[in-house]
């Protein structure tokens, strides 16, 4: 288990809630749009990727690829949030990206298998 990924999971989950709100609330200005749906999928991808990263034994290149994809999803979702004027979502996804960097760059001794 890599506990250092837990903050990213939590931020991803908050992102899902915010993106879901944007998708369905008429107050968001983007309800029912393709962009809001993409943002929801992006937040879900960040969360799911982080769960996989935290609870599996991926190492080396495979882990690197997974981390890259999570990071890419977080950045793109943050950008989507910005252009959807969902600034809370954009900020949460930016934090998730920072959290991912911290988790990945921490020394390996802090990573323990389950």
């Amino acid at each position: 288990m890599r506990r250092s990924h837990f903050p990213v999971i939590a931020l991803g989950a908050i992102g899902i809630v915010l993106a879901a709100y944007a998708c369905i609330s008429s107050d968001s200005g983007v309800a029912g749009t393709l962009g809001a749906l993409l943002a929801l999928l992006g937040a879900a991808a960040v969360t799911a990727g982080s769960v996989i990263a935290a609870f599996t034994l991926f190492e080396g290149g495979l882990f690197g690829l997974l981390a890259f994809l999570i990071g890419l999803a977080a950045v793109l979702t943050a950008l989507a949030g910005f252009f959807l004027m969902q600034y809370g979502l954009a900020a949460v996804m930016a934090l998730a990206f920072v959290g991912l960097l911290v988790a990945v760059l921490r020394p390996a001794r802090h990573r323990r298998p389950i």
Partner: protein
Amino acid sequence: MPYAFRPLIAALCLATPAAAEQLRWDTFNGDLAATKFADVDSFTPENVSELERAWEVHTGDVSDGSGDLPETVWSATPIYANQTLYLGTPFYRILALDPATGAERWSYDSQSTLEALTQPALKNRGVAYWESGQTGPCEKRVYIGTMDAELHAVDADTGELCADFAQGGVLNVNQWNTVNDIFPFSLLQPPTVVGDTLMLGWAGNDWAYSVAPPGNLMAIDARTGALKWDLSFIPDVLIPVTGTANIWTSMSADPELGLVYVPVSSPSPNYWGGNRTDPIPLATSVTAVDVETGEVRWSQQIVRHDIWDYDTPSAATLVDIERDGQTIPALVQTTKMGFIFVLNRETGEPIFPIEDRAVPASDAEGEVASPTQPFVLTPPPTNDPFEMPAVWWLADAVSFGQCSREREQYRYEGIYTPPSVQGTFMYPGTAGANNWGGASVDPRTGILYINSMRIVQIIRLIPRAEYDQINGGSGNEAGFYPQEGAPYGIELTNWWTDLGLPCWKPPYGTFSAYDLSTGERLYEVPFGLSQQWGFYGLSDWGSPTLGGPVVTAGGVVFIGASMDARVRALDAATGAELWSDLVEAPSVAIPAVYTHEGVDYVVFVAGGNSILKAQVSDQVVAYRLGQP
């Protein structure tokens, strides 16, 4: 209070300037001069950010087109008169609301057919109001037109039909649709009330036929519904081969001069004129008509031999301007082309020069495009008539050069490049630089305010045989229109990449102010936010707009119009945004400003319009300044 002080107190009260009030907003454009000026000074650049929602209403009359009903398009200016707020809905109902709370006082259902008989949507631009000056039932009336061309007159206090109007309160306007009657009339724009006369035009089925009903202006007795006179805009000799040149938008009037100013649209078919090469001088014009007799006093054609559907889209704005030490009764006609015609409204003489300039010839079969067109370069046009916007590098990059290739592929030689088989860039697009919202003006300063859009479209003439194969012989699929009877159908599309990005450089919409005494543009700023798939554009990109501005005495402009479904307050001095609020759909109606029981309100209708984006609503929102 000591008795001796009372006269002093009274004198002080009288010496205090009375707060400006807007006690009526009783036409589509606020007043008959179409100034869209509200004489309220309570809204200022300093305090307008404190606006709060006073009330909100959903009428229930909305359709996104996914069910049995066509989509709704709602551009109704609320009417404030008789201490009541009146609204027409796209289901052709009238609502009478309490102006302070939005509570419904009464409603009237015209029972109109809810089929798209002419236009592709259920459209409504509101109601008209008339009062006789006497008291009693039906001495104050509200009128609504319907999709099937009935004009209903109801009592403004009760919503009951006025039995003395036409047939039990309902006038069948389609009874006068007897020439080239291939489609019924639709009454989507409320009549313009001038004295005791209703000035009435109608909407038809655009882009479908070569031969169509000839457009006319009907003068209807407001009390009885009797036809006083009507005026056709197509010469009799040409009626067998063409039609329309109708009046589908609002009008303005100067009761002192006894003139109504009529924005006349283009003849049919809209994008090929080989059937009508003889002059039709009143088509695509602003024409001054005597209210009493229906005689044409003067007319200014703004497009000769219109083959771009550049209808005259809005009521001319009437204002007196100071120029060279003289006060001139002026008329300002905004246009789809972006030209701003400023004329003497008494004589029709131009106040700023109108230049005849050579324009490109047509290469279409049978077409004889006018060799010249009128250009107005002062005031500066809202859109460049000589050069369309350049290719946008971002769209070009993500489309791997699609935009650059198409820029070379299609014909463009300035604003009046004729439609062609090769394909022609049309800039401004068919919805125009400016549309039914027109402009607003502050009559105290002679400063004009106008929103405009910058859309590039591609129009392609399709030879009949090819069109019939593409289209199976039927029209109105997205982008394709038949122009039956002409040698060409058409395809009309926005110049977009395959991913839906505009190929041309932003901004897509602007807001400008002009000093009418000098013709100088005071500022031009991007306005609104564009939106695609939910993603907003940057503020520098602006937004296409439909609907118009209202300027207030306090120096604030209120406007919806943008595709991002926000209503805004702008600083009239700079165009800077001071306040905005998200509503449920683009507010493509002109807002209304009124003073009710001493409180100033601005009310927006958020109905949406598919020209901007597929988002509709039935929302009405009124705002007032927050309670101290």
